[in-house]
């Protein structure tokens, strides 16, 4: 070989992937041998760079997010039970309204209830979509989300218990509260995505 080795050839040689000609050349060429030695020293220098310590402890944030995810799993399953109970209640209210003859008022209440349930379901869909975005959240956001999820879980529990026993107006109030909380929860997630996305 009558020319100096390129950086690629030197790197291949360092990684034991060099050609025999390159190997022979570096043994006989002082310039390339010196270059090869500098390459080794550079890499040794990189490996010797000091380890760094994170300026802040992020475990609290990680833990909050993990716990929030676990709570979400719990309230989701409670929410499904609540929805099923509410559907039963809607059916019960419908049958009852026919027997007492107050068709108009009951039908109107039923429509309102159905609208709230539809809105809640739509927000569930939005929440699911926004949660698919991988992102990091601050401890404060995670705590807000956890608080909202806890309140939704309580409302769902109320809906489940009220089914067939409470006045329709109570159930409607609970659903209204659920929709409000779900809206706030979705907004909190969306704001966090916007923040992380710069």
């Amino acid at each position: 070989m009558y020319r100096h080795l390129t950086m690629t050839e030197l790197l291949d040689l360092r990684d034991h992937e060099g050609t025999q000609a390159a190997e022979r050349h570096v043994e006989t060429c002082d310039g390339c041998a010196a270059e090869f030695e500098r390459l080794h020293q550079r890499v040794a220098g990189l490996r010797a760079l000091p380890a760094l310590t994170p300026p802040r402890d992020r475990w609290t944030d990680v833990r909050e997010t993990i716990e929030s995810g676990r709570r979400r799993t719990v309230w989701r399953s409670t929410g499904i039970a609540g929805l099923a109970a509410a559907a039963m209640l809607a059916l019960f209210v419908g049958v009852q309204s026919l027997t007492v003859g107050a068709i108009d008022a009951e039908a109107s209440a039923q429509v309102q209830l159905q609208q709230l349930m539809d809105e809640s379901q739509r927000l569930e869909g939005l929440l699911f979509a926004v949660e698919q975005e991988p992102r990091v959240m601050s401890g404060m956001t995670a705590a807000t989300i956890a608080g909202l999820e806890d309140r939704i879980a309580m409302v769902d529990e109320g809906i489940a218990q009220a089914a067939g026993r409470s006045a329709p107006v109570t159930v409607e109030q609970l659903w209204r509260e659920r929709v409000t909380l779900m809206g706030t929860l979705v907004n909190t997630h969306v704001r966090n995505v916007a923040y992380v996305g710069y």
Partner: protein
Amino acid sequence: MPELALALDELAIRRAKTGDLEALENVYRAYQGAVYTMGRRMCRTPEEAEEVVQETFLEVCRSIKRFRGSAPGSLTAWVKRIAASKALIRIRYQKYRETDELHEDGRGSMGTDVGLSMDLEAALVRLSDTARAVVWLHDVEGYTHEEIAGLMGKTVSFSKSQLSRAHARLRTMLGEEV
């Protein structure tokens, strides 16, 4: 790379796999330094490195039950692989915000580097994001070009040429040219 501050035995890993938060915290404590160092060396800012730490450990906590390694060091390799992947995602995201070429030309054009002698750490920072990541993963973390290509979604020759160009630039910046 430095030795891990806290050795995790098999029992500790098994506990972490059950989702025990105390055990997961031990995993975090054992690896946070190594992950931060990798993030800091690969990304541009300390803030980005911190994000890499948080994203890595969220992933570790969520996925550790699927971790199947049993050989010594396999947990380290697994955590570091997640960290490398998170750091590369950050770098890719940065590339969408501004082109790599602009960044490289803007912060360390070859013209101003000629004859300039600086320390290795400063020179590393002046490389383009991609080149810096390749240098760190290959020369320090010991990843092969095949592995880097896989992580970056690029070819082996891309990884090799990035490494070659990076070393040529480092040599210039360190004033090592003959």
